[in-house]
């Protein structure tokens, strides 16, 4: 069922790691109009940080010519829809990428837990991706009444 959109914002920035904290605070500030609990705000910040970090390091390989796009919708029934999009390399096998502990990163410094965290800290996670075109992560968070 499509929910009525009550408010909306768009945000975009180059794929620089310094923007990770900006992105999570910008999104959580926008969500503050629904008066979420501290825990809900922390969930949103963490999930956004995961999606944005993935766009920057995996999607764009930290090439700051790449732009990360975020759209946040405040919908009826205290529902938030957060989309994080990159026009980077795309994901070949989404199911594999979303497997807990799987990381395609060769550095050995990543635990492969980003998607699991997004899944746990939101109510719904969907990933759309095509090779060479980019990736869109959509997260839905329903806030308590």
């Amino acid at each position, binding site marked *: 069922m499509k929910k009525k959109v009550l408010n909306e914002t768009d945000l975009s920035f180059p794929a620089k*790691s*310094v923007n*990770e*904290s*900006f992105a*999570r*605070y910008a999104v959580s500030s926008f969500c503050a109009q629904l008066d979420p609990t501290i825990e809900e705000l*922390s969930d949103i*910040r*963490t999930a956004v*940080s*995961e999606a944005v*970090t993935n766009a*920057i*390091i995996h999607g764009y390989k930290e090439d700051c010519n790449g732009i990360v796009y975020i759209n946040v919708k405040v919908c009826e029934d205290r529902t938030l829809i957060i989309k994080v999009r990159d026009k980077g390399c795309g994901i070949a096998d989404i199911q594999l990428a979303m497997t807990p502990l799987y990381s395609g990163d060769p550095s*050995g*410094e*990543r*635990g492969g*837990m*980003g998607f*699991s*965290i997004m899944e*746990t800290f939101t109510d719904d996670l969907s990933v759309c991706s095509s090779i060479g075109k980019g990736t869109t992560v959509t997260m839905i968070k329903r806030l308590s009444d």
Partner: protein
Amino acid sequence: MMNVLTAKYDFSDKLLKVVLSGEIDHHSARALREEIDTKINSLMPEMLVLDLKNISFMDSSGLGLILGRYTKMKEHGGALKVINPAAGAARVLKLAAADKVIPIEWTEEKNQ
């Protein structure tokens, strides 16, 4: 608002204690990783203790940082433990079941 990551080091009896404050994400983890690794390489501690009580935010990059240092310590025949993780950091550690691999101790009253 944005809360930089800082580390305070204390080394004695082959134990290196690192008290971290601020936010651990991919951006802040990078510099910290190099700093901690430099300390490990020069001091060769047998035990690395990461105090996370003042960590106000941590995502999977923090998890990667901790697991990476755990592996590095083990390679040198040493060990690592996490103490007093703040609520958010504790949740991320638990979710990844990292608390099954890495000892987590509370040496102070939980403030939640």
